């Protein structure tokens, strides 16, 4: 008995579990997820071995059918399927592709599975990796919201074909199926236990009772996982916002735990995020400006919704192309605040939280827009007039400055080094004054000034 080893390898394949919630006037509603559990049962020769008066295979078969029966009576949202390996060809044939989906997913399969199992005789080899790999095709609805897919592997030995269960694990990961296995065994060689280290969690089952208990635990864990999704809510309270980076911090240590880009499976349906259910988190959603949510704790055994208010609007700043086109930068600030929030390039669009912003464009002179309102899902267009060109030609060396004339107040725009000969500069449309005096002149009174107007896209010339 003590040499008998039963390993129960439960590989949990996690998929998406979206919840849709009532949100006031929205049309979302609560839906229970469907769980699909595929049992992969070892039908190799070693399962013929005796155990508590009968064979290992018999015990496994009876417990399996019992478990399935009781769950199906209690929960209509769980479906089962059965794949068996190593049962179609005798050991002598060394068939490493001996794996078959015996019963496909459907409701109320318990009877069908029992009848099928009656016809199975354990006899051949143990292609674990190959079976797991092929089981992917057993799931009819793999990539859909509202479906929870699980694989539970029951085996009494290690891989004796050429496959590598660990590598298969990685393959599944790439396809978005997480390997979270439970292994149950008794008196197994340390060497063999080690082989399953990379595959998952090890459990020992000394006898039939231990096996039954372990099976219960595994199935229960599979059906009641703790998961979470982040709902980024717009101004109307609907989870429409997405495609923004999020950072999860450990609320106790302030260490960064996860970085994700928020994803939707389909419109209004955020993806489940793979985070450790144990722990408290502080979340930063990297909107501009960022949004914070503190002390997030997940309720175990259920799917958690983490709602965060991130109503956003779009700011589009544009300028018509002009000769000698310069790429101006725009300073964006929250309305009334002197602190630079971010820089936005001209001719670009950027999302911001709904609110009022001040924009200062680094043209010459700088152009300012105050209290620009951004509201949910609307694009605020700011079009900045393109500058005009001023050509200056000074016959002698002068100290000179250009002032913008705004309602009779002079504001300095440019001070020249001094100026001699030709120079040109791009200025925003408006009224200006050029004031100059010959370098080396001893009289203030020799200062001269010229008023001029710059028009968008046009050239003005001043000779003096």
């Amino acid at each position: 008995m003590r040499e008998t080893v039963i390993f129960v390898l439960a590989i949990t394949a996690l998929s998406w579990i979206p919840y849709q919630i009532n949100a006031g006037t929205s049309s979302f509603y609560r839906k229970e997820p469907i769980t699909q559990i595929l049992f992969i049962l070892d039908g190799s020769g070693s399962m013929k071995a005796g155990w508590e008066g009968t064979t290992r295979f018999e015990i496994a078969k009876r417990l399996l059918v019992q478990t399935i029966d009781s769950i199906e009576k209690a929960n209509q949202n769980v479906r089962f399927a059965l794949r068996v390996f190593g049962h179609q060809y005798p050991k002598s044939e060394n068939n490493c592709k001996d794996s078959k989906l015996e019963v496909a997913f459907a409701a109320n399969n318990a009877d069908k599975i029992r009848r099928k199992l009656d016809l199975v005789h354990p006899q051949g080899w143990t292609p674990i990796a190959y079976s797991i790999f092929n089981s992917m095709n057993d799931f009819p609805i793999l990539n859909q919201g509202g479906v929870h897919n699980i694989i539970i592997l029951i085996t009494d030995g290690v891989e004796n074909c050429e496959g590598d269960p660990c590598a298969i694990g990685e393959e599944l990961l790439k396809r978005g199926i997480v390997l979270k296995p439970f292994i149950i065994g008794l008196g197994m060689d340390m060497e063999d236990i080690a082989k399953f280290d990379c595959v998952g969690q090890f459990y020992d089952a000394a006898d039939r009772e231990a096996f039954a208990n372990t099976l219960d635990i595994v199935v229960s864990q599979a059906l009641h996982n703790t998961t979470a999704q982040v709902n980024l809510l717009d101004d109307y309270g609907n989870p429409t916002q997405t495609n923004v980076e999020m950072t999860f911090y450990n609320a106790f240590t302030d260490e960064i735990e996860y970085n994700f880009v928020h994803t939707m499976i389909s419109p209004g349906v955020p993806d489940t995020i793979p985070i450790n259910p144990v722990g408290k988190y502080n979340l930063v959603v990297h909107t501009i400006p960022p949004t914070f949510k503190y002390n997030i704790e997940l309720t175990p055994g259920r799917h958690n919704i983490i709602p965060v208010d991130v109503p956003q609007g779009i700011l589009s700043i544009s300028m018509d192309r002009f000769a000698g086109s310069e790429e101006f930068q725009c300073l964006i600030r929250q309305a009334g605040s002197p602190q630079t929030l971010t820089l936005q390039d001209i001719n670009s669009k950027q999302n911001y939280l709904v609110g009022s912003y001040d924009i200062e464009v680094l043209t010459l002179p700088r152009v300012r827009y105050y209290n620009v309102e951004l509201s949910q899902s609307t694009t605020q267009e700011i079009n900045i007039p393109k500058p005009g060109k001023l050509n200056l030609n000074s016959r002698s060396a002068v100290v000179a400055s250009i002032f913008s004339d705004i309602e009779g107040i002079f504001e300095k725009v440019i001070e020249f080094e001094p100026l001699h000969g030709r120079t040109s500069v791009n200025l925003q449309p408006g009224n200006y004054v050029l004031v100059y005096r010959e370098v080396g002149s001893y009289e203030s009174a020799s200062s001269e000034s010229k008023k001029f107007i710059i028009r968008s896209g046009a050239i003005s010339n001043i000779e003096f």
Partner: protein
Amino acid sequence: MKKNIRHITSLVFNILSILTIMGVAGHRVVAQTTIRSEYEKTRILLLLDGSQSMFRDWETSTRMNVAKAAITDILDSVGGNENTYFALRVYGHQSPENIRDCKDTKLEVPFSSGNIERIKSRLKTIRPRGTTPIAYSLEKSATDFPKDPASRNIIILITDGIESCDGDPCAVSLALQKKNIFIKPFIIGIGLSTDYTRKMECIGSYYNAKRERDFKIILMNIVEIALSSTSAQVSLLDQQGKPTETDVNMTFYDQFSGLIRYNFYHTLNQRGMPDTFFIDPVNKYDITIHTTPEIRIREVEIFHNKHNDIRTNAAQGNLQMELRGITMKDHVHGRIKCLVRKAGGDEIIYVQDFNTSYKYLVGKYDLEILTLPRIIMKDVDVSQTKTTIIQIPGPGLVSVIRKYAGYGAIFIETEDGYEKIYTLNENSITELLAMQPGKYHIVFRSKNAKQTRQTIEKTFIVNSNVSVSVKL
């Protein structure tokens, strides 16, 4: 640039050669003040109250007679000046008081050369009669002056009462000053209680003639101020208190109307001292010295009987900004710019390009350098004695390459965690960025990846003036 280039209205400027200063209270007027103006004509409109109250007695005679005598004397002494012209408008003298004619005003003698005798004889015939429409008369005065941008237009209002029709003389005065019709009017009040001083002061410069003999003195004083151009200099002091700073533009605003009166470059004369220039003492000025940041001197009063030295601290120093190391030729964002603010201040006073040097007033400044990420430097000291050099490492060039377009951002790690410094363009698969040396993190998910767990995280290091490629 020949000297006869005409300035446009608000930039009138002149140089006087001879100025004779008259004493004020207690002296008798000395004959013939010679004031010559090379460029400017001065037109003085005498706006005389002809209302009934001017009939009242005043010490030796009636109010009206005292006024007439004083005006006649002044015209005799100053009327002969070239470039000085007079005109006479009267109000309240045509209709009797009981009619309350609020349009009772007439330009009795218009501006022209050689009209002094005519003014004197017309004065003799004016009889005080009616009401006091000051505002309406001021309005009408606008048309008495010909359009001549090179002349100074002055109104001297002589009144013994306040507005008795429904007008607002203050509003009219301000409006006409803003339109540059005339500069701030002078007002001589006869027998007005001090309660009315406020009402009068808002129209212009107000003088109250309490005694008969005060009237003539005040009138002469006004005419003198009106005709004179007063000498002044602006001393821009360095840190040793010496007026060595120069070559900066200054704008003089009329403190009353807000109009620009003068705009010129500060200059040092042959002796290295601030140059003397001539301006109207008529107004108080708000002066802006166009250093960076600006210096604003408010309500500078100019005295016409002395040389005015307007002194202010304007010590300046240089702030030089440069990139360390061999800089790359093709900068992704053109020149790097730096926002300069006064230490602790909110307003951006200047945006300086890197690899340039610029002059600022001595003091402390906060710099915000627009690199990626931005660099903040606080309390940067600018002093007169040495150039302050701000150096930052030249940026490295980062190519962010991905197979498919998607969503993500670049972060730096601060003590508060991840701070986003750049949002990746969701429509492109390569981006070229100039970034400061340091360690950065990218978080990214391609558009066709449908799961959160397909988020990619990468860390990369940027070195100064080196290109690095980040593949997602």
